[in-house]
Structures are given as structure tokens and as C-alpha cells.
């Protein structure tokens, strides 16, 4: 199937007039930049299967270097400004249209159902801009240049740990950059093809390209969302901790409701949920609890929930039926994988205690309670686990929590050094009040950071919190970008 299309499209290019070929020749220099700057690998990153024929045709072009076949490949010019690096070069169509240009020209964006290529292109270009903003594009490019310079230093591998870190970061930023480049290129290629089809009155090709643009437009929302989670730790699993505020049983009940909200949310997303530690309240609810949430981007999403959550309702624990306000604090800690540097822990710095142990122990006692508390003496940081069925496993679990807490503490410390990170990181610890849940006298859940609100608290408490999370993450990144622009 694809080979047929290749034949068809290459025969199509044989009709290309010479004026275009001249353009190609005159821009040959830039063309080289393009080819080297955007290796064929990039084309492979176009995931949509319906587009495979394009990639194949590109390979075809490179393989049979017949001059006319090369027109399409060379149709893209690279507008290189004097000081920018190769990676920052801007892509354009054969007649000089760029993604920013599309946005700037304010083409009307119509409904998806309208078959208007300009409308689709404008919508996609806007998405690309959103994605770039969320990736903090300019900062990413600067960082990438910096890392490239460091990678080229001959003495880099004298410090393998540092070198590994540099090359890992470079690889991950490079991948992000290439994904966006691929999107841009795909869009511009389609536009070129549509123009070509129109020139040649090829309705079939035009409608195919239109369909392809529509598909891109539909996928772009998802890509925008992906870009929200571009932080280094976002893909990690995480711990979510909930702690009841002051106020006795009512706030312990609230803490339990909040924890339940996250359990349901995690289960909805297909994440694995394990209770690591749970301290029940005397009458109801929990004093505190820690769950482990396993799955892709668990931290990236859940980090938006860190802070104090406030509840207003008529307390079922108050015989006087009065209105109560309670608080529960939520912390979210990433569980860094093997690829990350961990804070080293000296065994001699640890005090491991049997939790709630009393009496003679040993053979005297038969208990299924084998909770363990580990205290990291230098920092005073503790971790407890009581929900595993053996002491050994409780200890392992508590150690993992302790490691993550120490890692997070170290990240926060480093973030203070790199001031530009401070904003997003301080938000992750126990923080300010972020959301208000009112069950009486009216019903509403409102995020105090974004003003995002929902009038059905039940659905929220049943775990429908994605709206809050996404609106916060977008707001956070937009804010970051604004700050950066101001300081730039």
C-alpha cells in the first residue's frame, strides 16, 4: 500500500516546474543544514500510522537522489539568524511560512468539521505554541546549547557521575526538542503538499492532506497535555501523604475523605495503590496516612495536589449540628528511579525502632503488628510503615519512604541554590491552602490558585480531580513562562 503511494507521489513530483527547482539550488546551503539538523530519525518520530507513506517517500527521496525527487525535501528553507544555533533554526514551508507566522497571521479557526486547511493549520500552530510554552522552549534551547558545549569537552568523562547526569539531561531535552520539531515539520509539509495539490488541481491529494491536518489537530490536545508533564521527575511514581489538621475527629474524618479521593483517583487512572502507613483516629478517620501510587506520570499529576485542603460542612460528629471547618494537609513525594542520584544513607545514621512494641517481646508475644519506624538521626526525618505483613517488608517500605524524603529534601535544597526552580518546588511540600470544599450552606469545590471550580463536591470526592490538576499545571507553566519573559 505505502509503496504504491510512494510511486504515485514521486511521479507527481516529476511535474514540478523548474522555478521551484531553482529555489532549491539557490538554497542548497541551507538545505544541508536542514538535512543534518533533522536526521531521518526525526521523521520516524511521526507516530500517526496514516502518515507512514510520507516517511517512506522521504526515505525514497534520499535513497534515489534524483534531482526532482529532492525538491520536496529541499522545499523547506531554514531561516538561520546570525547568532542562533542549529537547533534553534526556524523551519518554514517552501514559500516561507513559519509556525509562528501562521499564528501571527491570525487565520480564523473554525470548527473541526469545517474543511478549511487554514483553520486546521492555525489550530495546530497554536497548539505547537502552547506546547513550546509549556516546555519553556527558549530556556530549553539555551540549556540544550549549554549541555552540548559541556558534552563536547574532552575531560567530561573524568567525572563519570557528572557526565552521566549531563548526557542524560541532554538526551531527555533533545528528545523533547525533536518531538516539537517533528510536529512543526509535519505541519509545514502538509501545507506544502496542499499548495502543491492545489497548483496541480489534484483533489484527491488535497483531501488526503486535509484529513491529515484534521488528524493532527485532533491529536494536538493530547500533545498539549503531555507537555504539561515535562518535568524531570514527572514520570515517576510517588507517595501521597495526608495529615489531619487540628480539630479532632471531624478533621480526621476529613483526612480520610481526602485520602479516599486520591485512592479513587489513582484507581480510575489505572495506577497501583498501596497503603504504606496509616494512623487511624480514635473514633473515626485517620490522623495521617501515606499511600504509594505506581504508574506513569503519577507524580507529574499528583504534585498539583500538594497543599492544604479545607472542608466546610455540618459535622456528623457534632450533636449540635453546627458548621465546622477542617483542614487536611497533602504532601506529594516523587519516588526517583535508578536513573536519578539518590542521597546516600549511612546505616550508622539510622535508628530503627519497633513501633508500638511493649512487654517482653519474642516468644512471649504473638502479634501481626510489625510496624517499623526509621529515624534518620542527622536530619531527624522519620518514616514509618505498618501495613506490610512482615517486619522485614515494613522496614524495606519505610526505608524507601525515607530515601524519597531525603531525596526530596536535597532537591529542595538545590532548588534554593537555583532560584528559578524555587517556585515550583516549594509548592510541593506541605504548603498553603490550595482548595476549598464547601458542602454547606452551598455546594462547591474551588481551587484557590486557579479559581477553577466545580459545583458537585461528591464527584470530586469520588476522585474526579483531573480538571483541578490540569488547570493548575497549565497555570503553573504559563506563570513560569511569564516570569521568565520578564526576567529575559
Amino acid at each position, binding site marked *: 500500500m505505502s509503496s504504491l503511494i510512494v510511486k504515485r507521489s514521486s511521479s507527481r513530483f516529476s511535474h514540478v516546474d523548474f522555478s521551484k527547482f531553482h529555489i532549491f539550488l539557490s538554497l542548497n546551503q541551507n538545505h544541508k543544514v536542514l538535512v543534518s539538523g533533522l536526521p531521518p530519525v526525526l521523521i520516524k518520530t511521526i507516530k500517526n500510522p496514516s502518515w507512514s507513506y510520507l516517511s517512506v517517500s522521504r526515505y525514497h527521496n534520499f535513497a534515489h537522489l534524483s534531482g526532482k525527487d529532492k525538491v520536496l525535501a529541499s522545499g523547506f528553507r531554514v531561516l538561520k539568524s546570525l547568532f542562533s544555533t542549529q537547533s534553534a533554526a526556524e523551519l518554514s514551508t517552501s514559500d516561507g511560512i513559519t509556525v509562528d507566522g501562521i499564528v501571527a497571521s491570525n487565520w480564523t479557526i473554525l470548527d473541526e468539521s469545517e474543511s478549511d486547511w487554514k483553520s486546521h493549520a492555525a489550530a495546530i500552530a497554536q497548539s505547537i505554541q502552547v506546547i513550546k510554552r509549556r516546555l519553556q522552549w527558549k530556556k530549553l534551547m539555551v540549556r540544550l546549547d549549554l549541555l552540548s558545549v559541556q558534552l563536547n569537552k574532552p575531560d567530561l568523562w573524568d567525572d563519570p557521575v557528572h557526565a552521566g547526569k549531563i548526557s542524560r539531561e541532554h538526551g531527555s531535552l533533545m528528545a523533547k526538542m525533536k518531538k516539537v520539531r517533528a510536529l512543526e515539520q509535519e505541519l509545514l509539509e502538509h501545507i506544502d503538499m496542499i499548495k502543491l495539490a492545489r497548483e496541480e488541481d489534484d483533489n484527491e491529494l488535497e483531501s488526503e492532506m486535509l484529513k491529515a491536518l484534521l488528524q493532527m489537530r485532533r491529536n494536538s490536545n493530547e500533545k498539549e497535555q503531555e507537555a504539561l508533564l515535562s518535568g524531570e521527575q514527572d514520570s515517576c511514581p510517588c507517595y501521597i501523604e495526608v495529615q489531619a489538621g487540628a480539630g479532632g475527629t471531624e478533621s480526621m474524618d476529613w483526612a480520610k475523605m481526602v485520602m479516599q479521593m486520591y*485512592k479513587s483517583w489513582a484507581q480510575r487512572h489505572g495506577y497501583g*495503590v498501596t497503603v504504606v502507613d496509616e494512623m487511624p483516629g480514635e473514633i473515626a478517620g485517620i490522623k495521617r496516612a501515606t499511600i504509594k501510587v505506581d504508574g506513569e506520570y503519577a507524580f507529574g499529576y499528583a504534585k498539583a495536589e500538594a497543599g492544604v485542603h479545607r472542608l466546610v460542612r455540618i459535622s456528623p460528629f457534632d450533636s449540635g449540628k453546627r458548621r465546622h471547618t477542617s483542614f487536611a494537609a497533602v504532601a506529594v513525594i516523587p519516588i526517583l528511579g535508578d536513573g536519578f542520584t539518590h542521597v546516600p544513607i549511612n546505616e550508622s545514621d539510622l535508628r530503627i525502632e*519497633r513501633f508500638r512494641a511493649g512487654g517482653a517481646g519474642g516468644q512471649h508475644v504473638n502479634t501481626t503488628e510489625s510496624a517499623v519506624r526509621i529515624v534518620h538521626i542527622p536530619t531527624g526525618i522519620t518514616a514509618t510503615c505498618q501495613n*506490610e505483613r*512482615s*517486619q*522485614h*517488608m515494613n522496614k524495606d517500605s519505610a526505608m524507601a519512604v525515607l530515601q524519597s524524603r531525603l531525596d526530596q529534601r536535597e532537591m529542595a535544597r538545590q532548588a534554593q541554590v537555583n532560584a528559578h526552580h524555587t517556585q515550583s518546588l516549594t509548592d510541593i511540600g506541605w504548603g498553603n491552602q490550595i482548595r476549598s470544599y464547601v458542602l454547606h450552606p452551598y455546594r462547591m469545590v474551588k481551587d484557590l490558585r486557579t479559581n477553577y471550580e466545580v459545583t458537585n463536591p461528591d464527584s470530586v470526592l469520588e476522585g474526579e480531580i483531573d480538571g483541578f490538576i490540569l488547570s493548575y499545571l497549565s497555570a503553573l507553566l504559563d506563570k513560569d513562562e511569564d516570569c521568565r519573559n520578564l526576567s529575559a
Partner: protein
Amino acid sequence: MKLGLSRACFYSSCSASIFSSSIPSLTTIKPKIPLFLRPPTYSVASSDLQKWHGWAKSLASSVGSSFVESDDGPDSTLLCRELNWLLEDSLENRSSSSCFSFAACNYDSLDGIENVMLRISLDDLYQLWKQRIEERRPFQYIVGCEHWRDLVLSVQEGVLIPRPETELIVDLVSDAVSNNEELGQGLWADVGTGSGAIAIGISKISRSYGRVIATDLSPVAVSVAMFNVQRYGLQHVTEVRQGYWFEPLKDVEGQLVGIVSNPPYIPSDNISGLQAEVGRHEPRLALDGGASGIDYLLHLCSGAAAMLKPGGFFAFETNGEKQCKFLVDYMQNDIAGSFCNLNIVSDFAGIQRFVTGFRQ
């Protein structure tokens, strides 16, 4: 066995009578299969299971702290956690047990499922939970297993349920082995192995090099230990022998690189006041250490002197500080010259629990 009894000068007449009254022959004892390993053949309406869960929960709640006050037994919170684990072990699909355990309000998530598959009948579940609360039958006997270190060991009446404290013996051995390669390649013994816990724990450490022989006087313990060894596929490195302490090890006298043991160490006088789960249900044979509780520990010390190679390592669990100090004093003075580098190690509750040392 009679041989063992007659030679055991410390052997209390009391435990001997318990023992002799119930000697099944080794070949007839088939270990019970733990609940979580049984086939899920019982189809039960989820509403009926919910009913049982509600009943069991309220029974657990009714306990409050009364067991704690009477003999330091479990409180409601702990019993509720055990209830969740019982459910986890009974249900075919473990993850659906979380629907129950997370919160009562989460029952909804099971509504879509008409029937659930259980490894045990609902009647038996009622029966078992009643036994747990009313008879104080240990939870581990109810589900037929104990989670110990990263192992899940089969246990049943007649076999001591391995304690969390005892997990540390494996760490002590692990430390000793990592400091001395020779220890990892030789022959070890776990005497009075019970469920086989320590033997299996240290077999997993020295898997490719060393071997472990586990002994126990109790035929039930021997068959349970064998079952557990097989379940972890360690029969090539771990051998279980029946007999009194070192009796079955005569062929390897002086050849052991390590001896570990958690012998009975509770003073006889304390037995009647034990927590109900222990005193009423666990084998006295595995608990009663004679008048001062130290009879078997002393026997082990003199036995270890004969059985260990020079440089061989031992780790024994004790009743606490008093026994630890007594043993160290005994080894330094009464049988001076046999052992060196004696050390007392505390458990995670801060109680001096273990004595370790090396054969000189």
C-alpha cells in the same frame, strides 16, 4: 525420640508429657495447605461476602482494648487489619480485597461483580473469625501462614509461629557471611527450626555455596519445615532432620561453620500468664525453657562448642537482657576458651535479644 528424652537432663517433664501424648508418626503427617495457596473453588455472592465482612468487622470492633488490658493481646485496629488480610488470602483476585479494605464506602466498586471466587467456604470464614475472636486462635493459624522477612511460611498448630524479632538472626548471619567468605560456603545448622524460617532465610543468603541442615524434635514441625523448604525450591541446599537438638547431626560433628537457633526460652512459671494466642494455642514444646528458661540455651552452648569448626559462627535468640548476660558470662567463665568475640545484639524494640560469637 526416647533417646533424646532420656539424654535431655534439662527437659521438663511437663513438655514431655504434652509431647508423648500426641506423637503422630512422621509419615502420616501431611502439612496443611495455607489458605492463600488453596484453589479458589467457592463461588460466593459478593453481597453475602459483604455481610460476612460487616459482621466480622463489628465483632472485631466489639473487642476494643479488652484483650490489650487482659494480656497485651490485639486491639480492634489490629484485628481489623487482620480481617483485611484474611480477605486478601481468601479472595481469588487479591486486588479486589482492597475494595473492601480501603473503606466501607468503597463497597460500591464491587457492586458490578455478582459473584466472587473464594478459596474457602463462607461458613468456614464465619467459623474462622469466630475462633479468632472468641478462642483467640492466632491469626497465622487461621490463614495457615506467616509473612516473615520476604517469605510466606506455612504454619499450623503444633509449630511455633516465627516472630518478627527472629528475622534479625538472618541479618546477623548475612553480616557474618559478608565479612568472611568461608562462612558462606560451609555447612550451617538451624536447631529447633520449627517452621524452617531461619534455615530458609539463611539458605537464601548462601544459596549457591553453603548448605543448611534444620532439625526439630516435633514431627509436625519437621513436615511443615519440609513443606516450606520445598515451596522455596531449596531442597538441594536445605535438609530437614528429625531429632533432639544436635542428635541428628552427629555425622557432621566439628564440621559446621555456623549454628543458629531460636530455642524455647520462656521460664516455666511464665507460661500460664502468656497472651492467650501464645499460651493457649502455640506448642509448649517450643516455648518452655525450664525453670529459668535458659536450659536449652545452655545445652546449645555446649553443643555448639563440639559441633562448630574453629572460626565457626553462632547466633542464638534469648528471652532478653538477663539471659544474654548470663550466657555471655557462662561462655567467658564456665566454658572459657571455647568461644570468642561474644556480642549481645538488641532487637528493634531495644531489648537485648541475641547472643552471637565465634568458635575459637
